[in-house]
């Protein structure tokens, strides 16, 4: 029976976030948010554009700042635009 098992293909997952939406609702700038959570504005830009996934610590700091739970701030979905 060895070698019969074929592992299912692992889907490419993408983390999407609602930071841009929440920031617009509260009318705060990227710089203000960056200062509040202790990062640079570039990092907020990169997170909003989906180019950088924050660490768990930063994700918690963001969710605490927006007074929401981490699941409503960050969601995971299948990446349909596969590069490979």
């Amino acid at each position, binding site marked *: 029976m060895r070698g019969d098992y074929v592992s299912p293909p692992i889907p490419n997952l993408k983390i999407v976030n609602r930071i841009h939406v929440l920031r617009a609702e509260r009318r705060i700038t990227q710089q203000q948010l960056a200062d509040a959570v*202790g*990062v*640079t504005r*570039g*990092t907020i*830009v*990169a997170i909003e*554009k989906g*180019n*950088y996934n*924050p*660490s768990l610590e*930063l994700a918690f700091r963001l969710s605490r700042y927006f007074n929401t739970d981490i699941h409503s701030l960050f969601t995971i979905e299948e990446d349909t635009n596969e590069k490979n």
Partner: protein
Amino acid sequence: MKKINRFLPKYLLYSSPAVAIIFVWGFLQEQADAMGTNSAFVKILREALSLHLVFWFMVLIYVLILLLVSSGFRDTFLSKLARIRERDERERSIIGQSSRFAFFSTLALLVVLFFFLTVHITFVRLPAEKAVNGKRNAVTIGLQFGLRDTPAPVKEQGSGEIVFSTQPFPVSKQVMVLALILWHMGTFYYLSRKIQSGE
């Protein structure tokens, strides 16, 4: 002591143009001295500036030693020199990726350099009378590895004209080390800028 150590690189940098001027001026005054046209004031001034020059070089040597032995000084000094900014986790991540890229590309370059320093390849164009089966082009491959830098004697290449040879290595040690520094910093910059521009 930390304050002094922080001040020293600035002193070296900002006084370097003055040091260069003192060098040139000192050289010109030395010629004037030989002709005996210098006044006593100029001689005293030259002595004073020479002392400053000695002090500047002593500081330079101290800073270079500090670079090797003090990790804190090395971190702050080289971070400023290479313009590395680690203000948050994303910048640290970029620096990590760029360092990896710079490390591997420099290692590859070092391996290539080591090959060309160890293996000597010489292309020779033999004279018509020494041609083998009508072929005049020849390649010789040699190997040299030594703990001390004594150049291997150049062998007679069948009295042929050397078209190209990797021995002696075409660049000096100073150029090689400078090229390695620039390559290492350049590859680091290249990737960190590339990552940041992609965001």
